[in-house]
């Protein structure tokens, strides 16, 4: 942009008009900016959650839509509100749901820990690499992040299936093929594989800011590298650890694609249960109840994330 100074009379007309229109609005220009996204989020984020809650108190019926109305209008202008708690009762009484919740949390937690154990040294290595290498390595982490999630899961199936790459490789040494697909193991691998960049990037952003002189000071005061790591690096990287684990843990709980493509029929995860309730059983109210219960499970970690988020906005 190397324009030479020009008189403002040559400003495009629409710009001028918009400017006049906005300045005539005065303070309300500000309200306009807030208004559009606020209305959008209210209608398409907040209200839907309320609708889900409402429908979770309804029951399945045949027809369109496939659920009963909460409000029914009687003969003499009476309005009747019918709330069904049966869906929520079912969530607790049917071991399918309880097991699915417990299993989801377990799988998500274990996969998150594995991702942390694998991602931390990688993030640390990238953060300590020379400037030139750092950019290349960072690109290598970000690249999968921009590649299709679904296709990466698909790539794993080609890798782990009975006659897949791993088993072909093992076959060269005469090792019997391993059964990896359709197991919980495959789900762990899938979650770690697809969410690893989400773990590495926040850890990296944290670790790269770590003041190198702190490590030198620690070494100077007589701490061995391991001691320095435990006493200095690890405590200072806690915010990165929290961000990374939350970014892996929360979406992993509700994961549908991974258990559905990599897991076996016994791999119960709540996202998959919800999907099946909705698509296979067409039980919308039950699916809604499952969603509300899932929301309760993830709401605490989400709040944690938001606190971190708003802290950066306030900065």
């Amino acid at each position, binding site marked *: *942009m190397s324009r030479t100074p020009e008189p403002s009379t040559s400003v495009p007309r629409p710009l001028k008009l918009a400017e006049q229109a906005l300045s005539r609005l005065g303070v309300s220009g500000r309200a306009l*900016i*807030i208004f*559009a*996204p*606020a209305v*959008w*989020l209210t209608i*398409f*984020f907040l209200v*839907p*959650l309320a*609708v*889900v809650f409402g429908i979770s108190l309804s029951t399945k019926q045949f027809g369109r839509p496939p659920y009963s109305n909460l409000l029914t209008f009687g003969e003499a202008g009476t309005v009747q509100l019918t709330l069904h708690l049966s869906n929520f009762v079912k969530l607790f009484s049917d071991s399918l749901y309880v097991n699915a919740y417990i299993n989801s949390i377990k799988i998500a937690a274990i996969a998150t820990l594995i991702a942390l154990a*694998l991602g931390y*040294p*990688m993030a640390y*290595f*990238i953060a*300590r690499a020379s400037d030139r290498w750092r950019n290349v*390595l*960072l*690109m*290598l982490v*970000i*690249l*999968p992040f921009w*590649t*299709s*999630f679904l*296709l990466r899961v*698909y790539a794993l199936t*080609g*890798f782990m*299936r009975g*006659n897949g*790459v791993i088993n*072909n490789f093992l076959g060269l040494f005469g090792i019997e093929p391993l059964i990896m697909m359709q197991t919980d193991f495959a789900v762990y691998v899938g979650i770690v*594989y697809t969410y690893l960049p*989400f773990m590495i*990037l926040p850890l990296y952003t944290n670790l790269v800011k770590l003041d190198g002189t702190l490590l*030198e000071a620690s070494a100077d005061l007589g701490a061995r590298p391991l001691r320095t790591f435990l006493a200095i690096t690890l405590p200072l990287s806690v915010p990165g650890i929290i961000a990374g684990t939350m970014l892996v843990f929360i*979406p992993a*709980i*509700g994961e*549908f*694609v991974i258990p559905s*493509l990599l897991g076996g029929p016994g791999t119960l995860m709540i996202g998959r249960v*919800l999907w099946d309730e*909705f698509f296979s059983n067409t039980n*919308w109210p039950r*699916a809604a109840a499952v969603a509300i219960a*899932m929301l309760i499970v*993830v709401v605490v970690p*989400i709040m944690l994330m*938001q606190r971190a*988020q*708003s802290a*950066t*906005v306030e900065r």
Partner: protein
Amino acid sequence: MRKGPFLPTAAILGFAFLYAPIISLVIFSFNENRLVTVWSGFSVKWYGELLADPQILGAAGLSLQIAFASASLALVLGTLMAIALVRFRRFRGRTMLAGMISAPLVMPDVITGLSLLLLFVAMESLIGWPAGRGTMTIIIAHTTFCMAYVFVVVQSRLVDMDISLEEAAMDLGATPFRVFVDITLPIIAPALISGWLLGFTLSLDDLVISSFVSGPGSSTLPMVIFSKIKLGVSPDVNALASIIIGVVALGVGIATLLQLRGQKNPVGASASEIM
């Protein structure tokens, strides 16, 4: 600091883990054999088959349209939101809005998809809009979660931006609107580009939400791929995946090169800003 062998080993293993499946997938997309993992000779026939498949091409076209529309809409809304939350320190509902905008970032897809579908169904029976589900409802759904990503990227750029630049322009006689057009917009442009690209990519990639809110005849590319994978081996999906990976690698590679040449890298910057 002295470096032990542990970190490099862990990093090499980690990167191998990240890349081995992708690389093998690309290699086997050139495999002649229908059995995706048994090599029998070099061939590009799956690419030919892919390009002759009207279902895949149609879905790809639809997905690109939806991604373009959602990313553009999300760019406007997310940017407005970022300006509101960063520049206006105090207004009613600010905390609430700040909470709402970041929630979609971590909300499980199944919940987002289900809740929007239930909303659309309820709205249709109440006010008759939207009539049925299809491209429009997918765009609305994608815009809603993409704007959260745009917001994060633009917001972090706005926070980093020296506020005195805007004050200086105002001091030199520019009205708030002119300040935005002349100063703010050019300076946050890299964030706008990366926010849009991020939205575009995420929309293109979404399977779960689209599955809930799509209607008959509006199957997106991920939906078609998913059903193909569910049915079993499909070498043309390998070909498709290779093309997508190639395009993304090229884009990210160019962006990184630009960054190495001292320019601001929209792709890499955005990803690390989201975190």
